[in-house]
Every structure is written in structure tokens, then in C-alpha cells.
């Protein structure tokens, strides 16, 4: 394919998406039109083949179950208990419930792999508590939206499962690689909350005594045990990430139904269908992206892009800067998983060429896409929090900018200090060679 034809492919894709066709259909139709335009109608047989193969790989089964686990935890009373633990731990710092919001998201992230589950589920608890305590609704909404992006960075993580499945990278290593970046993001957001709280004179809560803290931890212990079971089980080789997602569901189900008794059997059809709605939206895009990616590779488009970029520069730091820029820009206009699936076939050969570790790149890419969840006009976490908090989209986006700066600084650190990502997986699983 010539460079002009390559540009035409991406132009057609952008035009179809802009017309309002579902993103998955836009991708599949671009591939179909490319086959026809290149005079290769025989390749149309690849449409169902690739779409089928793209959706039925075993690791992808973790997606519905991690979403289901998040939904069960939200309905089953685990989120309230996590919030109480976080409140006892950090509520006394200047900015009070702002910090609680961030820490609760970090704990919740250890059980759920979805930012939107955090924003819409735990977010509801957080925003309600902050409203009762008299916080500015825009501040509450902004902290909730920003902290929800930690969800898919701290393991488990749905984007890591998809990245691992699409690229053959170890999902276990990706999960471990997200630990320190997740902590870094949390720390950066807490510093931002502290600065804003100091400037605006926000309150802090009273420091709780050891007895109250212990009570909160004991009450939340079953909920806090979930991350240990999920990650511990994967690390100990007891189960695969996909099986871990199933175990997380069963654990949340047992807690919600039997221990906390906040899930009724009659709630289950609704919870299951909500899980499927999220899952299927992602899976339809994955299936179409599998076809689109196959077409790109078959036409050697990634090679063309790699050669073009490397001809401009072969410096790793510049290439990473360009990739970050492209991902952040796309994040303003597209849904994160779609961006991941669209760009993986192009970026993976590029990062291999300049010697970036795929685990480092997977975490880096996901972090970019999480920032994209906060940027209008298309930002899923932004919409979810706006809907939960009743704060209109644009005022919320304006309130978010200090947190965006904090997340961008975190991104810079993760981009240029690979050890932040690789240290934990190398330590626990040995260096990958």
C-alpha cells in the first residue's frame, strides 16, 4: 500500500466514525472497503473469521467477569465498607474526604478493573458523602472522576487483559507492572487535593482513634481481602487472570448475598445484564478491531508507519513523546479500548524497533487512555461522574485541570523511568528475557 492509500484508509475510518456509525462497524467497514478497493474480494471471507477469532480467545473471558465483580461489589455493600476504611485512614489530612475519595478508589481498584465501575458505583458513595459534609459539588465530582482512572492501572485491569491478549504480553506481568504507577497516580492526586484544599480552606475530619480504625478495618476485612485473593492467586500460580476474575465474582457474590446480605437474588438479572451491556460494547469493538488489525498487517501498513517515523527520528524518548501525544489526542475523541485496539498493530512494531519493553508500553498506553477518559468531548469517566453528581460536563472538565496536570506528571515519570513499571514484575516474577 502506498502512503496515500494508507492515509485514505485512516481517512475513511475517521469519516465513518464521524458519520455516527458504531465504532466497531466503522472499523469493520473500513476493512471491507479496503479489500474491495484493492480488488481482493476473496478476502471478505476474513470478515467473520477474524471477528469470531477476535472475540473468543480465552484471556478475553476475564472482561465480563471483572466487570461483573465490580458490579457485584458496588451492589453488595463492599464499596461503603472500603470508603469507611479509607475515611478512618486519611480523613484527617487537609482536604479530608478528597483524600478519602482517592484512597478508596485505590483500594477499589484492587478488586475491579474498570474505571467506569469506579466512577459510577463507588463514585456515588463518595459524592454523596462529600455532599453531606458540605464540599463544593464540582470539587467532589472532579476528585471522583480523576481518582476513577486509577482503577485500570492498579491490578486487576480490563485494559491490561485486552492488551495482553492482543499482543501476547503476560497479563500477570502487566498486572504487577501497574502497582507502582497506580500508587504514583494516587499520590499525585492527593498532593493536588491538598493544595486545592489549602487554598480554598476545605475542612479535614477528626483523627480517629486506634479502636475506631480497627473496627473499620475489621468490618471491611472481607472486602479488603479480595485484592489479596485475586493477585495472590495469580502470583502463586493457583489460577490464571481469567480464572481470577471468576473467583473475584464468586467472592463478591458470597459476600453480597450471604455475609453483608445487600444483594437479593432478584437483583441478579439486572446486575448480569448491566455487566453484559458493558462487556458486549467492548467485545464488539474488539471483534471488529481484530479484522481491522489483520487488514493493516496484511497490507503492511504498520511497517510503513514505523519506517516513516523512524526515518524522522530513532530516538526512543522522542518516539515515546509522539506516541503519548497521539494517544492523548485520540483520547479526546474516542473511547479508550477502541484506541488501544486501533493503535496496537501500528505501535507494537514501533516500540519493538526502539527497544521499549511491552509490559512498560502496556502500562504506559493504558495510563494515556485513562487520562483520555477525562477529556471532553468524549470522556467516559467524565460522563459517568457528571451523571452521578449532576455537575454539568464543561464545569466539571474545567474543575479537573489541576488533576489532569498531576496525572500528566505521573505519565511523564512512567514514560521516562521504565523501572517504575518493571521493578515489581521483575522482582516477583524474574526479569523477562
Amino acid at each position, binding site marked *: 500500500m502506498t502512503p496515500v492509500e494508507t492515509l485514505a484508509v485512516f481517512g475513511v475510518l475517521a469519516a465513518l*466514525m464521524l458519520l455516527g456509525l458504531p465504532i466497531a462497524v466503522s472499523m469493520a467497514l473500513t476493512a471491507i472497503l479496503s479489500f474491495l478497493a484493492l480488488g481482493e474480494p476473496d478476502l471478505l471471507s476474513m470478515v467473520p*473469521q477474524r471477528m469470531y477469532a477476535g472475540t*473468543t480467545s*480465552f484471556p478475553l473471558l476475564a472482561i465480563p467477569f471483572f466487570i461483573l465483580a465490580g458490579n457485584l461489589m458496588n451492589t453488595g455493600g463492599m464499596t461503603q465498607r472500603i470508603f469507611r476504611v479509607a475515611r478512618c485512614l486519611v480523613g484527617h489530612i487537609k482536604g479530608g474526604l478528597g483524600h478519602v475519595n482517592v484512597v478508596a478508589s485505590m483500594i477499589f481498584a484492587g478488586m475491579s478493573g474498570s474505571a467506569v465501575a469506579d466512577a459510577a458505583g463507588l463514585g456515588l458513595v463518595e459524592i454523596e458523602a462529600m455532599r453531606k459534609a458540605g464540599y463544593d459539588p464540582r470539587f467532589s465530582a472532579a476528585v471522583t472522576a480523576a481518582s476513577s482512572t486509577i482503577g485500570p492501572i492498579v491490578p486487576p485491569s480490563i485494559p491490561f487483559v485486552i492488551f495482553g491478549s492482543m499482543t501476547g504480553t503476560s497479563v500477570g506481568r502487566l498486572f504487577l507492572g501497574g502497582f507502582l504507577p497506580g500508587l504514583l497516580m494516587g499520590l499525585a492526586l492527593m498532593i493536588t487535593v491538598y493544595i486545592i484544599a489549602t487554598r480554598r480552606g476545605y475542612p479535614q475530619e477528626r483523627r480517629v482513634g486506634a479502636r475506631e480504625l480497627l473496627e473499620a478495618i475489621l468490618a471491611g476485612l472481607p472486602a479488603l481481602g479480595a485484592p489479596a485473593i485475586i493477585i495472590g492467586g495469580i502470583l502463586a500460580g493457583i489460577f490464571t487472570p481469567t480464572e481470577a476474575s471468576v473467583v473475584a465474582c464468586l467472592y463478591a457474590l458470597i459476600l453480597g448475598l450471604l455475609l453483608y446480605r445487600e444483594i437479593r437474588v432478584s437483583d441478579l438479572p439486572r446486575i448480569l445484564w448491566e455487566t*453484559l451491556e458493558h462487556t458486549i460494547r467492548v467485545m464488539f469493538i474488539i471483534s471488529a478491531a481484530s479484522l481491522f488489525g489483520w487488514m493493516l498487517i496484511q497490507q503492511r501498513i504498520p511497517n510503513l508507519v514505523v519506517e516513516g517515523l523512524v526515518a524522522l527520528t530513532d530516538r526512543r524518548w522522542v518516539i515515546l513523546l509522539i506516541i503519548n501525544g497521539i494517544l492523548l489526542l485520540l483520547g479526546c475523541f474516542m473511547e479508550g479500548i477502541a484506541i488501544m485496539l486501533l493503535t496496537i498493530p501500528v505501535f507494537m512494531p514501533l516500540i519493538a524497533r526502539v527497544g521499549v519493553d511491552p509490559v512498560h508500553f502496556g502500562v504506559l498506553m493504558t495510563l494515556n487512555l485513562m487520562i483520555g477518559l477525562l477529556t471532553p468531548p468524549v470522556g467516559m469517566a467524565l460522563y459517568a461522574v457528571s451523571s452521578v453528581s449532576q455537575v454539568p460536563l464543561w464545569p466539571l472538565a474545567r474543575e479537573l485541570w489541576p488533576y489532569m496536570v498531576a496525572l500528566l506528571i505521573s505519565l511523564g515519570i512512567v514514560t521516562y523511568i521504565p523501572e517504575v513499571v518493571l521493578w515489581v514484575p521483575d522482582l516477583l516474577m524474574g526479569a523477562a528475557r
Partner: protein
Amino acid sequence: MRRPAVGRPVSADRLLAAALRWGSVLCLVFLLVLLAAGVLVRFVPLFSLGWADEVVELAFAWMVFLGTAALWREDAHIAVTFLSDLLSGTPGGRLLEGLVTLLALGFLVTLTWEGWLLAGQAVGNRTPILEWPKPLWYVSIPVAGIVMLGHTLRRAIRLIRPAPGDRRGR
């Protein structure tokens, strides 16, 4: 789950919607049970689940494609709606909807037909352990395709000849 209101006639369309949703949900529950059993028998080898991989793929495929058709009927797949929101209610918006419907039809015809051929090619093949016919797996694609085609064709017809009460032809 949406259920038909009491006293309202249950149309074939509503039955189809319920079948798609429940079919997809049952596949999810089945997968949950099967995978949980897989973890369990690793520690308590009560029975063999060697056949499970074949059924997992079957349930996964049907869950995804039935669910895709269910969400298609509800226009619930992720799309960039900036332009359609901008032109909503104008003649340009109607034209845009017509174009989008036409393009979607092109995709669906290809998917359904090629999916049907794929299932046909698998006739005679059986799975190694259960010896179930392989087309059972692939036929999920044309089945979902036909449902989506039917819905999209109905929308196309309504665009050309709006039904009474269809203000904007949807």
C-alpha cells in the same frame, strides 16, 4: 431487565428482544459456573473437565453475538454522535441517518453472508472430545447478523415511509 407491562400484548419483537438478552445472560452464567468448576476440580479432582474448553468457546461466541444483536436493537453500541446530535431534527439529519443505515446494511449483509459461508464450510467437522458439529459455533454470526439486518431494514423502511406516530421516521 425490561419486562412487558401487564396487560400489554407481547409482540414477536419484544419476545425476540427478551430471547436475545436472556440467551446472552444464560451463556454468561454458564461460563461462570464452568470456569469456577474448572478451578475447583484442579484442587478436588472429582471429575474430568477436559471437554470444557470446547463448550467455553461455544458459550462465549453465542454470548457475544447474541448480546451484540440485543444492543444493536437498542442502538446501544458505542458511536461518535457529535454530527448526528448537531443535525438532529433537520433534513440533513435525516439524510445522515439514511446514509448511516445504508452503510450499516452493507456491513451487515457482508457479515451475515460470509458468516453463513463460514458455517457452511465447517459442515462435517466435529469437535475432538464432544464430537459436536462445528457449525454450531460459527452459526452464531449469521444468526446475530440476520437479527441486526432485520432491525436495520425496518429502520430503513421507516425512514422512507414513516409509520403513524413516527415524527422523525425512527
